[in-house]
């Protein structure tokens, strides 16, 4: 069921929150031992929340009784929030992230915490201290990452809605691999207060859902200025649902030629080209655009993101929360052993790389230069949006790959984010939605990109395509 279908049941008095909760609990208990999308799940907590909502005389809030899954790096008061890392084992935040507070205010039922790559470092959900999540469409394949648990849970109908976070594609790539909708909002559209930081100049929280209108519903709930996140934008939030049905007649779309390169899977290419043709038929003017600095996106990202990560992860030192090694005699030994035991291999690799690019003698050549190239990448988008309203690209170069296929080869893994990364570097919003299935029934994702704070246009363009294409009605065989 989608969030809107659940809401329709409530309105028609055909179901109450406890019944919806029980149905999802049954489904999770049946499917999750195999898919492993949850990092934490407590059916009694779900029952308690749903029961409490029913006692309210007048149903309140736009998500009343709708279960929402939260990524394991977004703080929920009193609930284990661990970034799928041993170093945060047992951590129960003393406060709610702003987005979680908004969900509670809106009447949502918090369903649990979703599995992810440790600290959101990864594109496959294999780098988790809880073990990998599997792709509901093919259990031998990865769900993508890092928000793989959120996307897999939504795709397998264990959750109608989920929150993810996106630093280099971590919402959109798993959404593409699992055949769901995933939106990375504009940098500053959604508060990051209570999101455990990975790379602070790139991170955004966003919705994962099965339909575009559900995506609009969840974005509506979490968007907006927050004085506790000084990077959030103080701009009014439009009514996203209202914009959806405006249609796309007369809009201008751009197709960046640099995104159609060697290494792009032929079935992905075909699906995107078919979608572009459908946009033409809907009255969209499609033209080619050039984004000449696209080839620099991955190297720029892996300098900036690891630099920021190495700095952000310095706080995990065994002093205030989480794991502490018991075999350190001195403070320094306590630090080094705690971090040795607490971090997985990818976290260690990124901390070392980030420390290198920031270290004396290399700072200007790597980090300083990357910040300048970032400007060039952003200018590519600025120029494109002078001519077009939105961009159409593939979300990922291939459909979901196999478990274990890239885990030993970090560089190949990094290159799977090639189409999503420049969006984070530029701060613009982008959405991934299903646009086809391969011959072996793996979902293909299409990415739509718009200018800052144009989420309304993005959702409108996505909705128009979804209604004629109907890929959201395809489901994995479970």
């Amino acid at each position, binding site marked *: 069921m989608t969030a809107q279908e659940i809401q329709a049941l409530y309105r028609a008095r055909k179901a109450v929150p406890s019944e919806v909760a029980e149905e999802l609990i049954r489904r999770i208990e049946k499917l999750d031992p195999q898919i492993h999308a949850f990092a934490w799940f407590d059916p009694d907590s779900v029952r308690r929340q749903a029961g409490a909502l029913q006692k309210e005389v007048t149903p309140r809030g736009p998500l009343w009784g709708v279960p929402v899954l939260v990524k394991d790096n977004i703080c929920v008061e009193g609930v284990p929030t661990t970034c799928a890392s041993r170093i945060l084992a047992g951590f129960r935040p003393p406060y709610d992230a702003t987005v979680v507070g908004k969900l509670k205010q809106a009447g949502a039922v918090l369903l649990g915490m979703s599995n992810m790559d440790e600290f959101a470092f990864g594109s496959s959900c294999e780098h988790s201290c809880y073990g990998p999540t599997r792709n509901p469409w093919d259990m031998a394949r990865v769900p993508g990452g890092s928000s793989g648990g959120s996307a897999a849970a939504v795709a397998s109908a264990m959750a109608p809605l989920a929150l993810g976070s996106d630093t280099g594609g971590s919402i959109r790539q798993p959404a593409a691999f699992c055949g769901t909708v995933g939106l990375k909002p504009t940098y*500053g559209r959604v508060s990051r207060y209570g999101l455990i930081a990975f790379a602070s100049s790139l991170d955004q929280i966003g919705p994962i859902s099965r339909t575009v209108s559900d995506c609009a519903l969840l974005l509506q709930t979490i968007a907006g200025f927050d004085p506790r996140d000084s990077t959030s934008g103080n701009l009014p939030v439009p009514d996203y649902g209202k914009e959806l049905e405006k249609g796309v007649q007369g809009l201008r779309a751009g197709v960046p030629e640099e995104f159609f390169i060697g290494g792009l899977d032929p079935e992905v290419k075909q699906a995107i080209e078919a979608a572009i043709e459908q946009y033409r038929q809907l009255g969209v003017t499609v033209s080619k655009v050039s984004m000449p600095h696209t080839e*620099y996106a*991955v190297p*720029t990202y892996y300098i900036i993101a690891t630099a920021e990560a190495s700095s952000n992860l310095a706080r995990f030192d065994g002093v205030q929360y989480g794991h502490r090694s018991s075999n350190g*005699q001195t*403070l320094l030994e306590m630090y080094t052993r705690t971090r040795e035991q607490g971090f997985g291999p990818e976290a*260690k690799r990124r901390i*070392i790389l980030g420390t290198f690019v920031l270290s004396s003698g290399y700072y200007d050549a790597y980090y300083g230069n990357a*910040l300048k190239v970032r400007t060039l990448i952003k200018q590519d988008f600025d120029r494109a949006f002078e001519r077009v309203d939105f961009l159409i690209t593939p979300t990922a170069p291939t459909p979901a790959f196999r478990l274990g296929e890239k885990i030993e080869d970090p560089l190949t893994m990094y290159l799977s984010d090639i189409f999503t990364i420049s969006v984070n570097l530029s701060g613009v919003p982008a959405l991934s939605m299903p646009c086809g299935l391969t011959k072996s029934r793996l979902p293909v994702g299409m990415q739509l990109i718009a200018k800052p704070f144009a989420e309304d246009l993005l959702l409108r363009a996505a909705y128009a395509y979804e209604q004629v294409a109907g890929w959201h009605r395809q489901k994995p065989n479970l």
Partner: protein
Amino acid sequence: MGISVKDVEYLAHLARIQLTPQECEQFAAQLDEILVHVQKLKSARTEGVPPTSHVLGLSNVFREDRPQPSLSTDQALANAPEREGPFFKVPRIIDPTT
């Protein structure tokens, strides 16, 4: 580029992480490969290009300096691996023999 095992050991020290000899060797090879890929950035024309640190150009966000509700001492210490009274407890920092 040439990242040696010794370089990785030094970086691990800076980052306060103990690595095994196998990890140092593996990371040296992998970082080398990543840094070769990153060399591509040298061909970008960045003369006179300003760096971007905030994509929307926000800077210096101020607010009134007024006291606000915050966590109690017990809440702040609730997750501490070790505490003593109202403090986080850590191993000895200053060596009394020096």
